């Protein structure tokens, strides 16, 4: 799994620092009544990155993304999205964003193609020679896998189909930056897989920057160029899934059995340890298992640390 990730997506996490910054958040605070939900959130996103904002329920993921979308006013801090403060974003700015909403039963009398065509036309005045807007409707329908449903009413779509339409609506204006809040919530495994493929194709073929939230670790690991973990009102970790796992726990766990007896050993250099193990016991070693810290271990450790009050201001940045 780990190896495949590194082969599949080598360039992105190593993107040069001078690449265009699409999102820049500094000291973002949000207070509801007397409760501080965000207490100084800081992060940036570069052009073309897929950023996953991960965190436990109630950590403020939705609040953060809605502030960036310009749907919610912040209490304090500086936020810059495509060079504009979202609190002052005009319609020209709005036309460069895509927002994937979790639809429920809106537009149920509309047909898929009809709705995409209608919504796309609002972007026509914002087309430029470099960026033709909107997307070609049929091409987009094909891309999200709704070709067979193109002339169906929305009320007849399944949950997964409806969510793919949500993504299509988010993309119709050919956005430079796409926001998705819990996009795969309620998907069955097949729909989830299709959705992940869709996100990969978007980030590979287009220069679309994507920020999505999830509380699903597996999803974060599959999609993210970079993962941000939000806990206790701060970004407590910022890096690729591998980097995060290595940073929190450098040690791997080696398990084996010999003569019916089971052993566990923690070591920083598992390869060397196993080599020595075989050198010493040879064929007696059985049931060998080397387990590196997973994203889940990392996540649990970080979230626990930051929610149980042993909170350090240090950000695991890589």
């Amino acid at each position, binding site marked *: 799994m780990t190896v495949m990730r590194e082969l599949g997506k080598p360039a992105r996490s190593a993107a040069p620092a001078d690449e265009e910054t699409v999102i820049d958040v500094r000291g973002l605070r949000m207070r509801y009544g007397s409760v501080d939900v965000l207490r100084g959130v800081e992060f940036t996103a570069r052009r073309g990155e897929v950023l996953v904002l991960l965190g436990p329920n109630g950590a403020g993921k939705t609040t953060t993304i809605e502030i960036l979308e310009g749907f919610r006013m912040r209490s304090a801090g500086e936020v810059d999205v495509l060079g504009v403060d979202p609190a002052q974003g005009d319609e020209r700015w709005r036309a460069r964003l895509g927002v994937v*909403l979790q639809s429920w039963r809106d537009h149920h009398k509309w047909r898929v193609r009809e709705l995409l065509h209608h919504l796309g036309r*609002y972007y026509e*005045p914002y087309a430029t020679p470099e960026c033709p807007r909107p997307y070609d409707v049929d091409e987009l329908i094909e891309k999200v896998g709704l070709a067979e449903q193109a002339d169906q009413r929305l009320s007849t779509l399944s949950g997964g189909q409806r969510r793919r339409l949500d993504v299509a609506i988010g993309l119709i204006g050919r956005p430079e930056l796409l926001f998705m809040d819990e996009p795969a919530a309620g998907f069955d495994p097949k729909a989830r897989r299709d959705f992940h493929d869709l996100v990969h194709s978007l980030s590979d073929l287009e220069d679309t920057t994507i920020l999505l939230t999830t509380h699903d670790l597996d999803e974060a690991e599959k999609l993210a160029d970079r993962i941000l973990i939000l806990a206790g009102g701060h970004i407590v970790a910022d890096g690729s899934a591998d980097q995060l796992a290595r940073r929190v726990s450098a040690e791997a766990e080696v398990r084996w059995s010999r003569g019916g007896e089971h052993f566990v050993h923690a070591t920083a250099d598992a390869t060397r340890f196993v080599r020595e193990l075989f050198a010493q016991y040879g064929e007696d070693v059985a049931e060998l298992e080397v387990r590196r810290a997973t994203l889940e271990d990392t996540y649990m450790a970080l979230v626990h640390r930051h929610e149980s009050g042993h909170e350090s201001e240090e950000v695991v940045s890589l």
Partner: protein
Amino acid sequence: MSSAVVSASRLGVTRGLLEFKQTLVTPAELFWTLLINVGYVLVLYFQRNRSVEGSSLALLTLPSILGMAVAFGGAQGATNVLATHREDGTLLRAKAIPNGMVGYLVAQLVVISLTTVFGIVVVLVPGLFLIGGFPSAGAGDWLLVLGVLVLGLLATLPWGMIIGSFVKSAAAGFGLTFLPLCGIVAISGIFYPITALAGWLQGVAQAFPIYWLGLGMRAALLPDSAVAAEIGQSWRQVPMIGVLAVWSLVGLSIAPSVLRRMARKESGATMQERKERALHRGY
């Protein structure tokens, strides 16, 4: 206005026409629209042979019903549309696209107006057959009907939008508009002459648009002799236009800022809350 806003308004008109067409081909919605209006027609049917001072009671009631239908269509129609669309996320969608709100609002004005006109036609056509037409009404009188219709929509629709911006659900919106409107109808001389009521009730009724809408329609369609049943034996066209204009102007001046404030507060999180509440209620 920027060209993008102009083009969004044009898209709104397209959208409004399409949505109106959709309601016409959706059996459930068509059924409700027809049901309410068939109810009015039934009232006329039972009144057709009762005569008051030489003319059929149905003849006297039909114009008043048209006036009432304008107020219901404008106020309740707008409340319902806005509350429903806030609840189901249509509005949030509009907010997420450039000038989407402009397009949305224009579309809803078109839909509500067309739906109101459609309802009126559904009552008017069988009504005309029942009463054998308005013998005294000429082309100019029908023009006045149109004028009262437009003024009535202007006077009521913005208020519907204002109420729809505040209510927590479509059901609450219905409760908040339907019962009060029925109360006002009861004292507004729609089904019987207002002059039969106590003086203070007449005063209350005259503060609201429904009485004046009924009066305007009666002025247009009834023979001059029918004026005897009106307050002061006069069609009072200037006060009619005045009261409706005041409701229009106040509504139109408050509605934009209320709508802006409502739109600013729309977000995925508030939508989600409404969705959960609605699912919890079970509809």
